[in-house]
């Protein structure tokens, strides 16, 4: 452990006075080449670059390979590896303890799109202040290679045969459940993953990032939707995304003329700058978001980028009008009614 308060700032410190090492976790025990490890690394970089104080973050997960990964980044943050499919409820309760904290949840397609579908959808409509990452590989890894609910129909796996069912589209589910930030990315596109993570962290509310994260052991055949090869061939980014921190000077490249970029102002004063690629995509329009997801299905694209964002809604904890002091720092005097109230209550009991 570096950086006890008395230790002073390290040489390569960010504005929080921390080095990148302060954002690392335990060594990974996932397979070599697993997409999840690359995502953990991008979380580390994004948080370091955003000067996030690790104590201001709570990590959450459910059960599965993906859900192991919170141990592999940000050891200085509290973490809760909960039950299969139940991360959202644990996170919902936990974030009431201190409303200044932000959640980073890591789940998988098994954890969220099957057993956890109910909680996944309800945490969307509550707009919990948390990044909800789904490391999506179409397969159950820890139980050794069964189809998940996001596996494409017709996928052939060694022991399972051919998948007869239609896949769940996580972004589509999030969209129709009124999520306020929805993105899709690809573990093979780390730069985009990182920028999306930063934007998601700046978002005040639930931020779903569905990241295609290939399972190198059970589902990385070239023709499989969740493989590195397929992703590389079929990725169609909606835009180039850049996160600009609050109060940073915005330097735009010369070719970014009017009409070629979009800016989304975030709650904390930061900006998401989206450079249009083939067409002008507006992620604040729910209809366009639905359309692009449907088009991606029909055309076999891996459409990546910020699919939808709405910055107007209050996050869950805000809707409860809580006191400024975190609830977990309130004392007896705040919490126990005064003795006179007992007589008042007894008068009402008849």
């Amino acid at each position, binding site marked *: *452990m570096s*950086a*006890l*308060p008395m230790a002073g700032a390290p040489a390569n410190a960010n504005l929080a006075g921390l080095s990148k090492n302060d954002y690392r976790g*335990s060594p990974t025990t996932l397979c070599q080449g697993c997409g999840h490890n690359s995502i953990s690394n991008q979380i580390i970089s994004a948080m370091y670059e955003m000067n996030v104080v*690790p*104590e*201001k973050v*709570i*990590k959450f997960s459910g059960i599965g390979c993906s859900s192991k990964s*919170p*141990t592999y980044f940000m*050891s*200085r*943050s*509290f*973490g*809760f*590896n*909960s*039950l299969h499919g*139940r991360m*959202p*409820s*644990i*996170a*919902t*309760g*936990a*974030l*009431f*303890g*201190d409303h*200044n*904290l932000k959640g980073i949840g890591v789940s998988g397609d098994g954890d969220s799109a099957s057993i956890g579908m*109910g*909680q996944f959808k*309800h945490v969307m409509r509550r707009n919990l202040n948390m990044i909800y990452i789904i490391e999506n590989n179409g397969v159950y890894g820890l139980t050794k290679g069964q189809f998940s609910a996001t596996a494409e129909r017709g996928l052939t796996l060694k022991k399972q045969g051919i998948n007869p069912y239609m896949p769940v589209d996580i972004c589509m589910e999030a969209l129709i459940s009124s999520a306020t930030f929805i993105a899709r990315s690809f573990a093979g596109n780390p730069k985009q993953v990182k920028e999306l993570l930063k934007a998601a962290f700046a978002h005040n509310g639930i931020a779903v990032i569905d990241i295609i994260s290939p399972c190198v052991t059970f589902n990385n055949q070239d023709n499989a939707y969740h493989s590195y090869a397929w992703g590389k061939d079929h990725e169609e980014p909606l835009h180039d995304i850049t996160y600009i921190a609050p109060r940073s000077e915005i330097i735009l490249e010369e070719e970014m003329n009017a009409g070629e970029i979009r800016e989304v102002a975030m709650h904390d004063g930061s900006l998401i700058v989206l450079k249009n690629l083939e067409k002008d995509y507006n992620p604040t329009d729910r209809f366009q978001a639905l359309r692009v997801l449907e088009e991606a299905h029909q055309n076999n694209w891996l459409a990546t980028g910020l699919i939808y964002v709405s910055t107007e809604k209050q996050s869950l*904890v805000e809707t*409860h*009008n*809580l*006191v400024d002091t*975190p*609830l*977990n*720092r*309130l004392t*007896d005097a*705040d*919490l*126990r*009614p005064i*003795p006179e*109230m*007992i007589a008042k*209550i*007894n008068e009402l*009991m*008849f």
Partner: protein
Amino acid sequence: MNKVVNDFSIIVGTKNGSGSSTANNTILRAIFKMGIPVSGKNLFPSNIQGLPTWYTIRASKDGYLGRRETNEIVIAINPDSFTKDLESVAPGGAFFYADNIKLPITRTDIAVYPMPVKELVKNDPNVPNDYRDLVGNMVYVGVLAQMIGIDVEKIQAALDFHFKGKQKPITMNMGAVNAGIEWAKTNLEKKDPFYLEPMNKTEGMIMADGNTAAAIGSIFGGAQFVAWYPITPATSLAEAMNDYFPMLRKREDGKHTYAVVQAEDELAAIGMAIGAGWSGIRSMTSTSGPGLSLMTEFIGLAYYAEIPVVIWDIQRIGPSTGLPTRTSQADLSFVISMGHGDNDSIILMPGNMNECFDFGWQSFDIAERVQTPVIILSDLDMGMNQWMSKPFEYPKNPMDRGKVLREKDLEELKGNWGRYLDKDGDGIAYRTFPGNKHPMSSYFTRGTGHDEYARYTEDAGTFHRNMMRLKKKFGTAKEYMPKPVVFSEKDAKAAIIAYGSTESAVIEARDLLANEQGIKTDFMRVRAVPFTQEVDEFVRKYDQVFVVEMNRDGQLHKLLSLAYPDQVMKLKSVAFGDGMPASAKWIREGILAQYAEPAKKSTVKKAAKSGTKGAK
């Protein structure tokens, strides 16, 4: 005809959803205000509108609040249950009915009074059409008041309270009551022996239901987070929290020190509650059997990860959906071992309104002290029915937040701590809360194997060591458990053990046994699992111990048998479960069926003992 004063039951048969609850509560409150001990039990169907429902009011000069199995006075307003209601009247009883029901009166052994319920309201110009049925219910209140002697002023007081002083509804309802009184005065002749006469036995007492008591007690315990999912009979607990939080936690800045979240199901309700408990706030949920079944996986996690949370189980009768609106004590065996693998439970068992209130606040202290789920077993009878009670008392002790390390504590320890490290040797480790700003404050919580520093491990020795520490922790927990309540008689020949809502019925059964059979009994009402030393000593003291409970299998009996295997032969099960609140009748009969008159030698033993004493 001998007068029967202040010792009978009144049963009102109406249609569910017909708005009779105001009328029934008014009768209950008026009797209470007359100083007569009274209890009110709602026997309602799982239905919103249309099915028969009954409200039972028992006046008892001796203060018995349990269910009486005989119906002395029956008021029949519902044509659908008319025949059954008529049959249910005890011989010599009284039967009041709405005279728009044109069904034959088949009994001659009871007093029968038709009442023009609809007619009287129809002629009242002050009652708008929409309110005719609702206000019509007040006519039977008036007729009954006239016939058995309910004080009109007390009825007025009851309506004042019910409508919080709003004149319009009070006048409208009081008009119907008076119309009933006047009509009865001129048209009915008293043919039954039942009378109410003022007493002074309710002075200083309150009337409450257990769910409201629990909710208010929890708020006095500093409850901060409630996650719940609607289920009968637990719904009114969470709703009472919504009702009382604004008043009891009012602040000048208008902000909240609490949050109530209605979850999407019980899985999420308990998950949220556990998340909140983990984050360092006082957190709870309320549910009943089916919901509790869904919560088991999470409760197992909270046990193993050592997270405080309070779970109210307002028991209804199972298995499965069972009878959703009927009471039971059949969840004990289930909650004793919630979850797969080895586990321990802390169970609190309130037996009256004061304990619903007290365990409301004490449960948080215990949960945070022991860092584990605390399950409180209430039941529908206690939770939803009206009970006379001593007033609630302000918590005696300041809040016990248990072993918590804040920033300054960690600085003193130089960050050298382990979430599951047993520093004090009592099995309870120290915890920190998210949001703690010290860089060494965090730890990683998981339901997988972990070492003293909360790190993942599959090491056999470490796993075993942790499980043994948990066991030790639950040994320590015993000292925080509420002690049992004991009722003793001189020369008791046998003992009774029970828990929860059966208390009043047991007390009544004991009186009957003593007065009519000459069998004196001591009675212990247990209030917590794990059992404390007092339970152990009590069981050992008697030759026969009857374990009374509302279920089929004798679950408490089994649990005591496991706890005291060498005492099994003397433990006798008196278990009965049909969904109805406990009555003294089956308790007494169950005890008599197994009771063995002690052999003379025990008296000899006693004589010898006292002889020895005398010789000293």
